[in-house]
């Protein structure tokens, strides 16, 4: 079994509150922006692999909010040390979701190194996350979501996914001053 990414993201929408920050990257970001446009979507991570670190900065500076990171597997492989940094940081408000499609989807769909055997759940567990689990079935993922998001973080969830609908890749928006201003204004108003 494997989960359509937009179905997985869609299952998360009812559990994302108005005050939650969502950090999203690459195709998960483009999907999420279409599925759940909101001002507290943080889309400007700048450099590949940095979503988890941006998430940590936001979690440290905003302890009264949940920070939900929608990471990619190729991205996370560029910043595996961030798992250790996050686990050691003391934050309990960070929820790290990984869309594991095992390819570099927006860069030609080349396979990840070790695509057929990399154990992301094991990485996070070994790094010291409070919880780490993986899902290949939408129903099980959907049932577990409220419990995961209610548990003290940092929590890690690997979702084995394939692409869903072909949502547009709006790179101009995610790197725009407008996107950053929208987020900043929302963060500081609420």
């Amino acid at each position, binding site marked *: 079994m494997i989960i359509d990414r937009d179905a997985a993201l869609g299952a998360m929408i009812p559990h994302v509150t108005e005050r939650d920050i969502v950090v999203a990257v690459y195709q998960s970001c483009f999907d999420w922006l279409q599925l759940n446009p909101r001002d507290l979507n*943080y889309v*400007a*991570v*700048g*450099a590949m*692999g*940095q979503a988890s*670190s*941006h*998430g*940590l*900065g*936001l979690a*440290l*500076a*905003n302890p009264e909010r949940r920070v939900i990171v929608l990471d990619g597997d190729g991205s996370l492989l560029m*910043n595996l*040390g*961030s798992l*250790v*940094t996050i686990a*050691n*940081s003391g934050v309990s408000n960070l929820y790290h979701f990984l869309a594991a499609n095992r390819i570099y989807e927006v860069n030609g769909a080349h396979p990840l190194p070790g695509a057929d055997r990399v154990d992301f759940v094991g990485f996070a567990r070994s790094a010291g996350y409070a919880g780490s689990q993986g899902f290949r079935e939408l129903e099980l993922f959907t049932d577990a979501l409220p419990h995961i998001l209610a548990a003290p973080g940092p929590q890690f969830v690997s979702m084995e996914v394939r692409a869903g609908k072909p949502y547009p890749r709006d790179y101009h928006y995610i*790197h725009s*001053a407008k996107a*950053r201003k929208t*987020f*900043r204004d929302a*963060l*500081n108003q609420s």
Partner: protein
Amino acid sequence: MGASPQPAASSSTEVAFPSGAGIIARIKEAGIREIVALPDIVTSDGLLWPISVDPDFRLTRICKEDEGVSICGAMSYNGTRALLMMQQTGLMDSLNAIRAIGVDYELPIVMMVGLQGKEPHVKPDQSASYGVRIIRPVLDAMAISHSLIEEPEDIDHIPQAVEAAYAGSRPHIFLIGRSPEAP
């Protein structure tokens, strides 16, 4: 981290060193309470160890320097001030993150970078170490604000430089040319 220690060029020239306690006091004066760091031998005894036991600071230890660029940039969105500490090897390794997050995104990434291998009696650009010598020209090419801390009086500009970085929402890099004296 990442470079092997190199012996400084021998010299009988007497030099003075900046005060670690003085730098820490000025970091506090600048309103910084978040420190994000990888150990660097230049600043280890004079800055990072004292900071690590100072209850006024929260220290986040990172595994790789570019993590810190993202952490500090993200913190800045609600006005939280942070200082990112590393060695110049880590600075070079983080240039793309600084380019994207600090420069393109116009975020106030304030860094303190130890110039490991720089001889105490020469300016960075005259160092025998290629890795040290290129730092200021690289930052100039990227149009990134930077300043040198090596004489005792150099520490006085820290609060003003931090203020300017946050007011202008842009990076500033303090280059530490001589090991700060331990408090």
